[in-house]
């Protein structure tokens, strides 16, 4: 069973036992396989680069999944925190030589401050105000990042200064180090999500998602829970932004704060399964796989934007045929199989 709900038997078990529901080898095998892929003779940089992109978007999708999937707060402009993380890291490095290890920390603090202000103003309201506020802030930041040309590079964006392969600067000519960094992010975010789902805080988030009034009637501080979930998600997005900017080496207003980017952050969880730990992993991998195929198709037939069309179609199919994502389909089929 994937991300199964707690049962009476489960809650009698300690947290560690609830998290490790299968033998350790089950969790370590996929990590080992991905880690060993660069060593295979037929694997080239193109394949590794595609895997890095998948891992980056899986991590970003996992971060969004916390606020939207587990917490039920639809943050439509979550690119705000990706952009703030990327720009802060990039500007501090280019202008002041601050390494991304510290720049990313600063970016996360800025994201937390912005999320705190946004959340405090909108999360007490019921309805669509929060979702609209996130969109409004992201649109404002697109304009601001275009306006302050000296700082952000304006509409052309910001290109990181390349200093050669360096751990201090988190830079490499080869995509392979980013594969391992991306893998570390995905593993860390996956287990963060699993811990959340098994923890008291995760239970509070799910209660608020299901019914805010009933959650308050059960003793849950709904506003504080929503705000904490939002802050956690914003922070994780901003931390993953360090990997994004160091890998792509550039950021521009649309790639940072644009709505198409925000949709790409949402797709892994929407495709794979909202509110589950494994959903964004499957959804993110599928998204990049289809993106690579459509990019290849685009160059063959000379039509741009096929990937956006593919995302739209995928989203449509998921909404109509599998609203709980691919994980929902797998669990449903497994349940059907079990009852046969």
């Amino acid at each position, binding site marked *: 069973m994937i991300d199964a709900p707690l049962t009476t038997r489960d809650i009698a078990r300690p947290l560690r036992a609830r998290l490790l529901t299968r033998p350790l080898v089950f969790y370590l095998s996929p990590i080992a396989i991905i880690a060993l892929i660069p060593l295979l003779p037929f694997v080239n940089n193109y394949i590794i680069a595609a895997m890095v992109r998948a891992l980056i978007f899986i991590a970003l999708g996992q971060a969004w999944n916390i606020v939207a999937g587990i917490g039920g707060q639809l943050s439509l402009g979550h690119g705000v925190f990706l952009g703030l993380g990327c720009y802060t890291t990039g500007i501090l490095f280019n202008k002041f030589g601050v390494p991304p290890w510290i720049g990313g920390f600063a970016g996360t603090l800025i994201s937390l401050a912005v999320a705190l202000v946004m959340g405090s103003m909108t999360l007490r309201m019921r309805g669509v105000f929060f979702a609209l506020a996130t969109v409004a802030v992201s649109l404002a930041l697109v304009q601001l990042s275009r306006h302050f040309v000296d700082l952000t590079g304006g509409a052309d964006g910001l290109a990181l200064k390349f200093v050669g392969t360096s751990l201090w600067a988190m830079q490499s000519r080869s995509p392979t180090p980013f594969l391992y960094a991306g893998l570390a992010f995905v593993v860390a975010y996956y287990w963060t999500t699993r811990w959340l789902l098994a923890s008291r805080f995760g239970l509070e988030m799910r209660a608020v998602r299901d019914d805010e009034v009933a959650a*308050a009637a059960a003793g849950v*501080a709904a506003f504080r829970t929503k705000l904490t979930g939002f802050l956690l998600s914003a922070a994780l997005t901003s931390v993953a932004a360090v990997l994004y900017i160091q890998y792509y080496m550039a950021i521009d207003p649309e790639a940072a704060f644009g709505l198409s980017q925000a949709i790409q952050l949402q797709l892994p969880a929407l495709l794979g399964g909202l509110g589950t730990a494994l959903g964004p992993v499957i959804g993110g991998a599928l998204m990049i796989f289809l993106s690579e195929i459509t990019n290849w198709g685009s160059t063959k037939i000379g039509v741009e934007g096929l990937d956006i069309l593919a995302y739209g179609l995928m989203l449509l199919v998921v909404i109509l045929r599998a609203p709980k994502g691919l994980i929902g389909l797998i669990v449903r089929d497994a349940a059907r199989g079990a009852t046969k």
Partner: protein
Amino acid sequence: MSAAALEVISISRNFGGLIALRDVSFKVAEGEVMGLIGPNGAGKSTLFEIVNGNLPPSAGRVSYFGTDCTAMPAHLRRRAGMCRTFQKVRLFESMTVTENILVAASECLPAARDPRDEVAAILAQFRLEPQAQRRPSELTLADRKRVEIGRAIAGHCRLLMLDESMSGLTHEEAEHLITEILALNRSRGITVIVVEHVLSVLAAIVKRLVVLHNARVIADGTPSEIAHDPVVIEAYLGTKQTALR
């Protein structure tokens, strides 16, 4: 003399020009089982939401065991033991029965106690163990109501407010639920307020009734007194015969 479990003091509530409650006052003694009745639109639900902290009053105060809780948020009232159910059952639909109860047990129990023990005790008390791993959508209405009451009392409960918990149940299911509610009152010493609009249902449970009509309290007494009160008969019940039917 100990403070009342609940004291509603001159509560009024307006929605724009509409007066939903006008100077409503009553007390509920600790350990009492009290009924609150009134026809649709009398102001029962508005009063319920104000007492529970989901709606601020336009005027007046709510006192809970001697403490003014008018400005206290709903979740803090719950943690202080003020518990409720909803007119239309509101469970956490993505969660199992166990998880539904665990939410409240985790929030409302003292830190030294294990919420898992409380969940197990409530599942046993309401005979919900066979349904423990089911989701609410798989339950009968009677079981959903029992889960909601179980969640409502989990952790710490001194005052339980039931909002039309018998509605939609068969006669037999309602009787079972009444037995369980009275058992809670006796075994845990929980003060109970039952909101219904059918007097015959309440007459079997409570020794005292408060009647709301047109945003005001029009009567306060035993079920027998209420059934014979000419103001109640005229304003709400129609005739004595229909009142006790």
